[in-house]
């Protein structure tokens, strides 16, 4: 089955960020396709490369990057939500006149249309949130 996954909460703040990662991993292990993962609200914070959790804790952002590389996942961060919360890629930082960017490997920034299109293309759309 082809899934689009929406993640609406931030890592370490809310269980749904963990559950979403575990769901995607489990779905891939069962041979399902993940069409897209869309990060919204505080969920955009799953895509920062500047998070340094304690070393004996899970490494949520890094695990997303690794999973994306292994399975060629399309991890999309909503640009409007990202702008409010300070998640930037290089070109957006340049456009906004910022001197730093912090998007993690395997993520890209795009618009809300990617969420709707994901809902249209996938067999199932699953929302992880509060």
């Amino acid at each position, binding site marked *: 089955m082809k899934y689009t996954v929406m993640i609406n909460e931030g890592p370490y703040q809310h269980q749904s960020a963990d559950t979403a990662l575990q769901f995607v991993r489990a779905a891939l292990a069962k041979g399902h396709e993940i069409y897209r993962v869309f990060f*919204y609200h505080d969920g955009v914070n799953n895509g920062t490369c500047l998070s340094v959790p304690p070393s004996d804790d899970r490494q949520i952002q890094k695990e997303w990057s690794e999973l994306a590389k292994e399975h060629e996942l399309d991890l999309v961060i909503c640009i409007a939500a990202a702008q409010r919360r300070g998640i930037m890629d290089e070109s957006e930082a340049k456009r906004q006149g910022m001197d730093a960017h912090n998007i993690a490997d395997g993520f890209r920034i795009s618009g809300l249309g990617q969420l709707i299109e994901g809902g*249209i293309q996938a067999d199932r759309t699953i929302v992880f949130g509060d």
Partner: protein
Amino acid sequence: MAIKKFMYVNRKAPYGTVYALESLEVVLIAAAFDQDVSLAFLDDGVYQIAKGQDTTGIGQKNFSATYRALGDYDINKIFVEQESLDARGMTADDLMPLVYEDEDDDWAEKPSISIVSRTEMAAIMAKQDVTFSF
């Protein structure tokens, strides 16, 4: 590709958290995709479309006027749960009069809001292809 039924479920108060505002942003984008869109308001979400919102005391933008524009975006299926209104001492009169112009009826202005019971809401939700919950 066949048109899908998309429902946007709003469960949280308009201010206090960002969910309502960012949900509305999704809905406005979704309107451009020519899908079958409907909105549900339940729990504290019914406050999102309450009349007479005034945010001057909290220093936040009052975005309630945007709901009135939904009809212009062809979003005219807005379901409000009766039990959620009852629990908050509200009636239909406490909601903004959201309307749309019906192009199949000489552009007559019609109400977009339907107040439905929890049981009816469940049946409407069960018919959706994609449900986003905010």
